[in-house]
């Protein structure tokens, strides 16, 4: 992480001045606020709730890769925090520690902070919708999921998690590395199905014979994680 800090800062700097261009009717578009620099009292007030938090300082110099779900840089996204939606917020999701982080400027210095999981409703970065399941009575285990598909009776959630695995054994290489572990969860008519292969998918749609037949006859592949999600999206597109 030490090596990637300048890259990270550079990426943030590139993004900050220009990420306020998505105009809409919302107040935030009127604000044209894309920064945490709080140039006006109005901006300071508006972002007060999401510019405080615990310090985020998870660096893993001895592990290959990074702990974030996609990229190690902060990306501009939308955050719903305690029921309020904030647009153009610099976000990242540390899927190893299950933490959502943002970056703030304090006294001229950039600081990475943790957004409290208990207050996050959801967020959207890089065209992916993340939902935070906090209610322990929910059919899904509490945690942060990608909501890949949402229909009236079917939803597809992807639980993406980073884990630290083994070592390469090669001299000079880091001993351990981060690896992605994904699981796909289908909610069909309120019933939860963790799907790992084609058979699981057919079983999840057992009460919809036409769809089950389509899956059976299709040449969709389900073996790898990324194959599974994209194949499921093809199936759900048939609904």
């Amino acid at each position: 992480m030490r090596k990637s800090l300048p890259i990270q800062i550079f990426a943030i700097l590139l993004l900050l001045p220009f990420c306020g261009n998505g105009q809409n009717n919302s107040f935030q578009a009127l604000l044209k606020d894309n920064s945490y620099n709080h140039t006006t009292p109005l901006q300071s007030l508006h972002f007060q709730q999401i510019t405080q938090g615990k310090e985020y300082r998870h660096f893993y110099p001895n592990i290959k890769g990074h702990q974030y779900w996609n990229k190690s840089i902060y990306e501009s996204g939308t955050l719903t925090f305690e029921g309020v939606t904030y647009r153009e917020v610099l976000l990242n999701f540390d899927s190893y520690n299950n933490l959502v982080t943002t970056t703030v400027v304090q006294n001229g210095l950039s600081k990475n902070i943790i957004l409290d999981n208990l207050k996050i409703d959801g967020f959207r970065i890089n065209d992916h919708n993340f939902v935070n399941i906090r209610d322990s009575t929910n059919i899904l285990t509490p945690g942060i999921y990608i909501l890949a598909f949402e229909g009236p009776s079917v939803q597809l959630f992807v639980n993406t998690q980073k884990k630290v695995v083994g070592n390469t054994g090669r001299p000079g290489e880091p001993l351990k590395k981060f690896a992605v572990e994904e699981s796909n969860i289908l909610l069909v008519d309120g019933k939860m199905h963790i799907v790992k292969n084609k058979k699981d998918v057919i079983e999840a749609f057992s009460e919809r014979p036409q769809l089950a037949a389509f899956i059976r006859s299709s040449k969709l592949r389900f073996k790898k994680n990324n194959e599974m999600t994209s194949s499921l999206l093809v199936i759900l597109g048939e609904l």
Partner: protein
Amino acid sequence: MAEPRKNLTTGQNEQLMKTHHQYKISGFLLAVWMLPAFLLAQNHPDGLQQYQEKVFVHTDKPYYLTGETLWFQAYCTNLSNGQLTELSSVLYVELINSNNQPVMQLKTSLKSGIGNGQMLLSSQLSTGSYVLRAYTAWMRNSHQKFFYRQEITVINPLNALPANTNGEDTVVKLELSSGTETLNNESNFKNTLKVIINKEIYTTREAVMIDLVTSDNQPDQVLTLSVSVYPYYQQLENNSNNILLTTEDPESRELSAEQEGEKSHYFPETIGPIIYGKIENREHSDPKNHLFVSTGGKASRTYEVVGTDSNNFAVELPLGIDYEYLYFWSTKYTGTDITLQDPFDKRPPQLPATSLQFDSSTIEFIEGQSVNMQLSNLYHEYTKIHGHQQLKTNKETPFYGQPEFQYYLDDYTRFPSLKEVFVEYIRYVSHRKKGGSSNFYVWDDYTNSQSLANNVFFDQPALVMLDGIPVHDQQWIMNIDPLLIESIDVVTKKYFIGNEVFSGVVNLKTYHHDLAGVELPLSIEKKPYKSLQNPMEFYYPNHGENASENRRIPDRRNTLYWNPGIEITSEKSEQLQFYTGDTTGEYLIVINGITSQGTLVHLTKKIRVIKSNAP
């Protein structure tokens, strides 16, 4: 430059210095690169200044007896397109008497432009014409002609009613609404809303069914409605309860708050209520810097105030938490003198002097209504007359979220002093003397987990709180009776608030999160605060299911039905059902509403209730 830390190895210190240096560079680069953003940000006030809100308030009826509850639903729209606005989240509602004095004031929340609430009209009010005024903080930057104003007749039946011996009523119509559209029933809205009522004449205690259907084919078009049913009496009617008659007066666009001698400096309350205040402090050049406000309680929040100009500041509080007090404190100085601004607008509505006089038949009607109210008070519990509390989910998490460590003191042997508690149990907090003063130091989570060192504590004191209220006087903390403390939260990471960084947080929590009667040190300035109203739910009996049970209990409701916040779409219609009471006569059904595209809807329908022949 960062100072080398004694508790770190040379290598760790080098790394720390390097990181610090990188942050310094990033701060400089950030300032350079952010320049275009600053320039863009300079433009925003123009766009925002042109954003004008407009409010309409639907009350359950136009006249009230003292002791009755006034129910209302508010619609806040964007004047430019007529659509419900998401700009403001707080609505200010006042009842103002003919002397321009507010007699009741409340704040209620707006969600996507819709909010509701109620006012219990005090028996101290005298008979007369009152004005119900509603506005958002953002609207206060405009001329008060933009405010919503509605005439309300309030009658105090305990006092002698002003009788007119000429035989004519002189209920003065203030005509506060300045719209040009005329009241027109169903024909105007047949494409938007269809209202089907099962009958026109009902007997007492009979079910009234109202079907609300929209024939608009657009599936995403949502029609938000409020419905009231009350005894109709022509002499007490006015046209103010009509959303169509709130069309803005074109002349008012040219008017500004400045023309009324008002400074327009109110921010839109997008998240929650904004508190404005002024600080005087002779010892500090810029006292608003390093000034914080805490709310205390279970879901305690702490914010650094935002300076607006010289000694003035603002701070925005989130919705969903009730506070009784705000606690102001500083990390740098003591001896502050804070004045909080009244959140309600001070401009008098400048009403004409009015007097009410009623003819004998109106007095007879009012007396009938009064008897109904008294019988209701006699036979029904409070919540069946004035509504019951809606289920609400208050926020319960403190500002720092889940602490890394939480100690429930009842799980341990109790000690007579807090000092012993910290020494014996709270291993992640160290109370020690450094630089001549005693402070609490918290275990440094990151340094301990990411280096070979262990048992490293932050070298700066932690933020120490009692029920979420920071206290810097460590001796004062140590003197608290430990038996009053239920648990201690410890945050072992640095915590950033505004421009301040705290080396961990220690929060001592009493059993009821209410300070348990402990008086706070004088360095903390405590200010009373009135939270937003929690809307109640209107009660109406079900004479179908509970007919035999209720048979001997009189049902003398004046307002038969009130339902705010009904939403229908092309795919979701609504059937309302309620029962008539024991009072016969004419009733008026009033429906107001707005579509998501900004089309206004207003419908009225009269029904008659006659005596039932049933035994």
